[in-house]
């Protein structure tokens, strides 16, 4: 990567131009997210930097959009709904998903590819199709517009992520450990909770975080399957952006960016821990 001392002028010029191009692409990736943060402290109801903000005048900044978010009942209801729906959906997809991932990683599974394709399909099928199908079907069985309908739908959407992360962790799992545990008299349930689970926990947790963010971020399915009582944060943002665009959205966006930074850090730490553990166990 480093430029060799014998590089020609042309190579030098290209080397630095290339770095500038990469810098611009990184800027393109991160700038739209970063720009939202200072704008959310705007004391005016504008979506752009005011003169006071640019001259760093304290009068140009305020917390009024945050105050609005925490006092407005619409936003508070939406936040509360999101907080109620996402963990339930995550719990459902993680418990069923982990069990199935363990089953899938056994050496002899009939029709493994077909089962895998079926379980991953919610990730591949366009959301609008899932949403339409669920809307028609759930209204027929009386689940549309209910809390459990939305939880069920979100759990289905989160399952592929749990399956992918947990099976990836299980690839590095040493089967002789479970045999050793059984040999020493542990029953399958004890083996699972005392031996297997602690080792695959990083994969399970990052799968859970993926499932959580899928449900927490999801708009299309909840719009169709849910009713006004299940209005979540992203739904409220969607209607906000569509109809009367209010600057409170910027405050919400900033809060969500902070949440995603926290989730990203957790997943990265878990991934490193899992790689360390895998490096230690033989095979």
């Amino acid at each position: 990567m480093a430029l060799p001392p014998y590089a020609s002028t042309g190579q030098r010029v290209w080397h630095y131009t290339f770095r500038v191009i990469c810098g611009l692409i990184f800027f393109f990736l991160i700038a739209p997210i970063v720009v939202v943060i200072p704008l959310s402290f705007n004391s005016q109801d504008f979506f752009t930097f005011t003169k006071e903000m640019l001259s760093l005048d304290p009068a140009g900044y305020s917390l009024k959009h945050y105050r609005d978010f925490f006092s407005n009942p619409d936003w508070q209801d939406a936040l509360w709904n999101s907080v109620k729906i996402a963990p339930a959906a995550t719990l459902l997809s993680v418990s069923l998903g982990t069990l199935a991932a363990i089953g899938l990683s056994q050496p002899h599974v009939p029709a493994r590819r077909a089962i895998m394709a079926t379980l991953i399909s919610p990730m591949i099928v366009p959301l609008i199709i899932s949403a339409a199908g669920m809307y028609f079907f759930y209204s027929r069985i009386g689940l549309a517009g209910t809390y459990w309908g939305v939880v069920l739908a979100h759990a289905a959407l989160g399952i592929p992520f749990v399956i992918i992360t947990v099976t990836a962790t299980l690839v590095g799992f040493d089967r002789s450990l479970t045999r050793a545990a059984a040999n020493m008299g542990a029953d399958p349930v004890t083996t699972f909770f005392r031996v297997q689970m602690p080792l695959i926990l990083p994969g399970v947790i990052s799968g859970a975080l993926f499932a959580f963010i899928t449900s927490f971020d999801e708009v299309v399915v909840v719009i169709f399957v849910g009713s006004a009582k299940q209005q979540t944060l992203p739904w409220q943002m969607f209607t906000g952006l569509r109809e009367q665009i209010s600057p409170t959205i910027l405050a919400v966006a900033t809060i969500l960016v902070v949440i995603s930074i926290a989730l990203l850090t957790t997943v990265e730490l878990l991934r490193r821990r899992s790689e360390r553990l895998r490096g230690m166990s033989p095979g």
Partner: protein
Amino acid sequence: MSDTTDTGGPVLAADGTPLKRSLARALRRQKMRALLLIAPLLLFILISFILPVADMLYRSVKNGIVTDTLPRTVVALADWDADSGDLPSEAVYAAMAADLKEAAAAKTHTKVGTRLNYENPGISSLFRKTGRKAKKFDLEGVSSWKEELIDINKGWGDVGNWRTIQTYSPPVTSGYFLNAVDMRVGPDGAEMRPEAERIYMNLLGRTLWMSLAITVCCILLAYPVAWILANLPMRQANILMILVLLPFWTSLLVRTSAWKILLQQQGVINDILVWVGLVDDSARLVIINNQFGTIVAMTHILLPFMILPMYSVMQTIPPSYLRAAKSLGATDWTAFWRVYFPLTIPGIGAGSILVFILAIGYYITPALVGGTKGTFISNQIAFHISSSLNWGLASALGAILLAVVLGLYWAYDKIVGIDNVKLG
């Protein structure tokens, strides 16, 4: 066990059963256990996801409403030859009167009208107007229902209307699909709609080309980034990786609203352009609510999905290959184009299919920044579900979209393998 082989009989396991059978049983048990672990989830996915999608697909051909509401008419109409140009017989009119009386009492006559109106605009008013009087029909007291019905509404004397009823009386129809590909059932079978009425194929074409444009933009932007991530020392690469992963983890709505704010006419980008002097204040650029806005925002949103597979492929290419090519006399460009680039094609392929699959089904971003010119087929599906309530057509459009996506998914599975999907 070695002594059992001496006897020449089958090899026995410890409990005395032949080893072969014992092994088979163990294997069967293992399979059963694996399946039992998978079964709850499989059942869950079947009920919460696969059945709903299958139900939607069935809806795209389902057409029970005409037979359910007008059962007698459907039977009576079966023998009528629409091509003869004559109106149906007296018996058909009588059956229709009886059906309408019942339907009007159950208030289902407008539903049939709405359904047939998708195929023959105007026919719903015929049903609505006749339905109002149908409740008071005296089925025995009228000698000729043919005259009576035509008297109530001239539409009953139109062969075209009867043809529509007859065409859409079977319980399964291809009508929605024909509609979805801009065709209709004419007097001589399926035919294309007039040029001005062709919407959906244009929309599908636009969805495909915009997804392609987004994929190409993603390839162009992701390649240098993936290369620099794969070639920098670990520590620096990890820091830059955060810049890729943060957008990946940030809420889709946040990124879309950020673009909405940036691209507005009074937004940050236009402000900067005016401030720099590139654009006059009175001639601010329109870069939102059109195709440009959709392509920019979606390229940004989908870029991490291209960078990550490219990066994982480039990481496995030893840098010594490039050095070897150069030491054999290749220029920088030849070494890249003949040695490095071909090795990265699997990464490009994997990323492109992934981005294309995700792009083609997008709904939220085009709905918010696409205006009318930059919307996708998903937006039309949503419109037919929630606004026009033509669920059959929505399902048919969905089925076509699903077929395209599943084809690509199959290709992805062949090229990359679904087991190799990696996240983060």
